[in-house]
């Protein structure tokens, strides 16, 4: 049953990168500014659960009701030449790599191409793209919808910016039915709250 987020964790587990035998969850309390995966700070407006597993370095996974229902992923500082997810089939299904020279439109296409390859399907659609700021830097905000192999329609939104040649990206996705609409407002506020401390 393929979903974007689930795959993200599964790939990390398969790669044997995670030390803990079982994934744990820690509470992230609303209203508290918190450091995410190293450098960026966000302030959630609702309580979230944070996975103790970090799928790739400088990443975090949050959920409220379980990852099938709402999935908030942070990728904080993807380097030049790196893909979004860890590659499991580097030769036969290589993932596109990040390049700091990318235009904002390229980031959207890069995300879409990555999703298409890992989902193996073609029902991933970008529905809206607009300019936006992340942590005070010019970037992009886009919305998408897709159906994974569990045949559930999901919607999602991403905020991303290239800062000092690294990509910072926050992505949220949830079933179109009920969960997306319930959570997206708070997620957008969280994305707006992001800032870098030096």
């Amino acid at each position: 049953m393929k979903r974007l987020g689930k795959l993200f964790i599964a790939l990390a587990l398969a790669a044997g990168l995670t030390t803990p035998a079982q994934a744990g969850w820690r509470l992230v309390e609303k209203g508290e500014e918190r450091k995410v995966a190293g450098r960026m700070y966000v302030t959630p407006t609702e309580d979230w659960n944070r996975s103790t597993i970090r799928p790739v370095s400088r990443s975090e996974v949050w959920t409220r009701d379980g990852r099938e229902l709402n999935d908030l992923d942070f990728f904080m500082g993807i380097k030049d030449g790196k893909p979004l997810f860890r590659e499991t089939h580097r030769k036969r299904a290589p993932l596109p790599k990040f390049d700091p020279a990318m235009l904002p439109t390229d980031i959207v296409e890069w995300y879409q191409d990555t999703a298409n390859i890992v989902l193996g399907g073609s029902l991933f659609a970008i529905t809206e793209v607009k300019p936006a700021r992340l942590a005070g830097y010019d970037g992009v905000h886009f919305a998408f919808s897709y159906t994974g192999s569990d045949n559930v329609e999901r919607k999602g939104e991403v905020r991303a910016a290239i800062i000092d040649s690294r990509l910072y990206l926050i992505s949220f996705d949830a079933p179109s039915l009920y969960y997306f609409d319930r959570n997206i407002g708070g997620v957008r506020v969280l994305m707006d709250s992001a800032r870098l401390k030096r």
Partner: protein
Amino acid sequence: MKQFAITLAASALFASPLAAQDVAAVEQVADPAPLPSAHGYEPQDDLEKGLWYEMDEAERRLKQSKFLIEDPALNDYVRGVLCRTVGEDRCPAARIYLMRTPQFNASMAPNGVMLVYSGLLLRMRDEAQLAAVLGHEFTHFEKQHSLRLFRNMRKKSDLMAWLSVAPVRLPYAAAMATQFAVIGSVFSFSRDMEREADAGSIKELAQAGYDPRAASAVWSQLGAEMDATAKERRHRSNKKRGGLFATHPRTTDRMGTLAQLAEAAVPDASAAETRAAEYRAALGDWWPQLIDDQIALQDFGGTEYLLATLAGGDPAGWTGDLLYARGELYRARAKEGDFAQAADFFRQAIATGDTPPESWRGLGLALMRLGNKPEGQEALRSYLTLRPQAADAALLRTMAGETLS
């Protein structure tokens, strides 16, 4: 998840190359039983009934799939091609489902479910080629090849013991294929079965008035595309390992045989039809979507070969659509020199006077990556004039230097 586990078990049965090894020796008895294509055919024994039960369940889920292409015109067209190929009296045995998934594949289950992937539709150059594939799959169905595989397996071992058998690996993990593993699996038929299906398809093509040479063309195109993908990615060609070629007779051997069969069936093929124009018209508005699906896979070598095939090896064959697709392919790869190439293809596409407005978008973005901001912005503005409601219009406006309204 129990249901899913059973599904997996059955799919492993079909897909296991082991299953195909010695089937050739089995069941060549003259068959007094009715053909499955006959009207009102029912499963003959408990085993076949069980198989149908599984397949019918899978079909029920299939009907709800978001991956189904429901467009009535396209569905009617594909059904029409099958009926023309195998005849009006036999084609009602097939229930065709068009699946939006970019891989090359088609299959037919024992209960009459025929899956046709959109990646197959993208790759066929004319109606005769589509007819060749449909005729091939229909022969597998009518000769009950998958049922024979299933029976043979059951003789050897209990169904559940095969849970651990890994299915044939697909080049990509197709979401659709995992969803409907039973009917969507890649059947590893024995070589004899493939020969039988090849011979069947040639016979059907000839009777329907199609050019039977289409069959060998399909396999040579597919093989060459796999080679092109492998060369770019520096791995062994899939032609030599799994998927559709897993237990097929050696490709070269097979194409030679197909060509001989075609020659024998229709010595003078000049009157035989390929119906290329009809095929293009039927695909119509779907084509740009299907080529986008293909480009998104980032299979540069394979897609480049595919586009050249569709252009027919003729400079004049490069239509505005194909040039646009080629520009997008180069822009997506983004290696050194690719943006200049892409800009060139977009310009050629625009010069044809018949290209999607997205060629202007591609040109603008390629020029901006090349550092040519003024011309890039101008191209983006042209695109926004043509597509003011584009999903990314707001972002493109700022990139084109227009102020937000």
